[in-house]
C-alpha cells in the first residue's frame, strides 16, 4: 500500500515540494481566509477532500479524456465536488461558510487543483493520485494554519476565538496589531515563511 515511492508522493508536498511555498500555487485562498484559524482549517479540509477525490476521478477516466477538452472535463469534475462541499458546509457549519463566502467557490480555480490534475492525476494510477491529493492538500493546509496562527495571535490576541493573551498585558499597554488582520500582512507573513523555509533548504534558492 505504502511503497517507498508512494511515501514520497505523500510526504514530499509537506516541505520539499510544498504547493504554496515551492510551487507557488493556490496563493489566492491562502491569503484571503487566514485572518482566523477556524476558517483556515475548514478551508484546508475542504481543499484536501476536493483534491483527493478529483485526483482519483480524473485518474480513473484519464485514458478516456480527449486531450483537447481535458481542461473543461477537469473543471466540471472539480466544480461538482466543490458544490458538494459547499452544500455540506452550508448544512453543517453555516457561520464558517458565511465567513469563507466566495472562497469555497474559488476552490474550483485554485491552481493547486488544476496543477496536480495536470501534472499527476493524468499520468498516474488512482491510488498514488489519491495520496498525491492528500499530500498536497495537507501541505497547503499546514501553510494555511501557520499563517492563520500568527495572524490571529498577533492581530486579535485570540486562537480559535479564545482569548490567549492575558488581560493584564492589555492593562499594561499591550495592543493588538490591527494591521495583521488586514489582507496585505498575509502576503508578508507568507514571505517570512518562504524566507525561513528557503534559508533551511538552500537548494530551493533562486540564482
Amino acid at each position, binding site marked *: 500500500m505504502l511503497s517507498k515511492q508512494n511515501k514520497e508522493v505523500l510526504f514530499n508536498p509537506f516541505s520539499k515540494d510544498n504547493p504554496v511555498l515551492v510551487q507557488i500555487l493556490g496563493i489566492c*485562498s491562502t491569503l484571503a481566509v487566514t485572518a482566523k484559524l477556524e476558517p483556515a482549517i475548514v478551508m484546508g479540509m475542504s481543499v484536501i477532500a476536493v483534491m483527493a477525490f478529483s485526483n482519483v476521478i480524473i485518474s480513473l477516466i484519464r485514458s478516456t479524456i480527449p486531450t483537447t477538452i481535458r481542461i473543461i472535463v477537469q473543471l466540471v469534475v472539480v466544480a461538482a465536488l466543490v458544490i458538494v462541499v*459547499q452544500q455540506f458546509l452550508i448544512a453543517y457549519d453555516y457561520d464558517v461558510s458565511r465567513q469563507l463566502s466566495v472562497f469555497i467557490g*474559488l476552490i474550483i*480555480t485554485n*491552481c493547486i487543483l488544476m496543477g496536480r490534475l495536470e501534472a499527476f492525476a493524468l499520468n498516474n494510477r488512482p491510488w498514488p493520485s489519491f495520496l498525491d491529493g492528500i499530500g498536497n492538500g495537507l501541505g497547503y493546509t499546514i501553510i494555511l494554519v501557520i499563517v492563520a496562527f500568527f495572524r490571529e495571535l498577533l492581530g486579535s490576541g485570540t486562537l480559535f476565538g479564545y482569548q490567549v493573551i492575558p488581560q493584564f498585558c492589555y492593562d499594561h499597554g499591550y495592543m493588538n496589531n490591527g494591521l495583521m488582520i*488586514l489582507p496585505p*500582512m498575509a502576503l508578508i507573513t507568507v514571505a517570512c515563511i518562504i*524566507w525561513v523555509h528557503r534559508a533551511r533548504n538552500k537548494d530551493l*534558492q533562486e540564482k
Partner: protein
Amino acid sequence: MEELNLFVKSIFIDNMIFAYFLGMCSFLAVSKNVKTAFGLGLAVTFMLVVTVPLNYLLDTYVLQPGALTWLSPSLAGVDLSFLGLIMFIAVIASATQLVEMAVEKFAPALYNQLGIFLPLIAVNCAILGGALFMQQRDLGSVWSATVYGAGSGVGWFLAIVGLAAIRERIAYSHIPAPLRGVGITFIITGLMGIAFMSFMGIKL
C-alpha cells in the same frame, strides 16, 4: 453617475488583487516583465468585461430563486442557485474558447501578443471571483455588471503592470538569497497592498 462610482470603487477600493487576492497565481508568475504583464492584464480585463454581464444574465434569468418565472409562472418556486458555480465556470470556459477563436480571426496581432495567456484565463480566479462577487453584491442591471467587470479588470491590469515594473527595477538589487524571486515579490505585493489600502473607507 452611480456607474462611475462603481467603476472607480472597483478599481481602487475593491481592487481584485490587493483587497481580495484574486488571480494571484498568474499575477506572481507572469509579472517578470512589463510587456507580458501588459498582455495578460489586457486579456483579463477583456474577459471580465465579457463574462461578468453574461453571468449576470444567467444568474438573474435562470439561477436565482424564482428567476424562471419569465418562462412560465408555474416555475416560480424553482431555485437553481446551487448550480451557480458549475454554470459560471462553464460560461467562463466556453467564453474563453470563443473569445480566443474570435481574437485569432479578427485581431491576429492582439492574438499573437496575448499568446498562451488567453486559454489560461479560464482558470484565473479573478474571472470566477468577478462573477461570484457580482452575484453577492446584487448589482442592479446588466449595465452595472459590465461596469463592475470593467472596473475590476482595470484594477487588476494596473496592479500587474505596476508589479512588473517594480520587479524589472529590482532585478539588480542586493536581496538576501532566500528571499530572491518569490519571497521579495510577496513582500512587494504586500507593500503595494498597504499603499492601496489608503483608498479604504472612501465613500463615493
